[in-house]
């Protein structure tokens, strides 16, 4: 499986500010995704990060609030903009369609734990 890293691992931010989370993979991957996990909850897909084009957002998530970049096949960023306490969550990136792996398998980064005061 791929080695996936995220930065920062955790942060405490003030409301109204923005935080950019980075996701780095040690090999080229076709698919990259961003998920949110609110406290005590399961994971919800925010968007699919498309290389070289705009991300595809799920219902309830918009580009102005969660801008995403994916400049190449190994790196993506998610920005949480104009934060409020409701944005306190764990944010996870995942990758899929790895060479030599069964189609559909997804692997997750270690997550970024965000607390907004």
């Amino acid at each position, binding site marked *: *499986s791929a080695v996936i890293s995220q930065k920062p691992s955790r942060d405490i931010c003030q409301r109204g500010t923005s935080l950019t989370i980075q996701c780095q993979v040690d090999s080229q991957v076709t*698919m990259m*995704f961003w998920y949110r*996990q609110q406290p005590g909850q*399961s*994971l*919800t*897909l925010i968007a*699919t990060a498309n290389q070289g084009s705009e991300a*595809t957002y*799920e219902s309830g998530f918009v580009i102005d609030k969660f801008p995403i970049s994916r400049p190449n096949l190994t790196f993506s960023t998610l920005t949480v903009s104009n934060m409020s306490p409701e944005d306190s969550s*764990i944010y*996870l990136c*995942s990758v*899929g*369609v790895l060479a030599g792996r*069964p*189609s*559909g*398998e*997804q*692997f*997750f*980064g*270690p*997550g970024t*734990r965000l607390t907004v005061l």
Partner: protein
Amino acid sequence: SQQGEEDPQALSIQEGENATMNCSYKTSINNLQWYRQNSGRGLVHLILIRSNEREKHSGRLRVTLDTSKKSSSLLITASRAADTASYFCATDGLMDSSYKLIFGSGTRLLVRP
């Protein structure tokens, strides 16, 4: 909305016992995957089972899939304290080629030493 529902929501067992978790989903799927999450950290991929498979094993893990009932189960045999974690099932839809996953609500497993 979440595709999968899992039960039980929480499970407490003694070390050495077996743990069984169940997952139900709503629409036809390509694959179903099980993940483990320790204390709000990243997800560890456990196993993927395809829609045309009925059972799969990996070490102490056994996964079954019943597409007629739209359900799956994860069995952990001879549990250890280190198995204490939350377990999630996730599916990708048959009619959706985007590979995006929809997660179940999760089961919190506590293995008592």
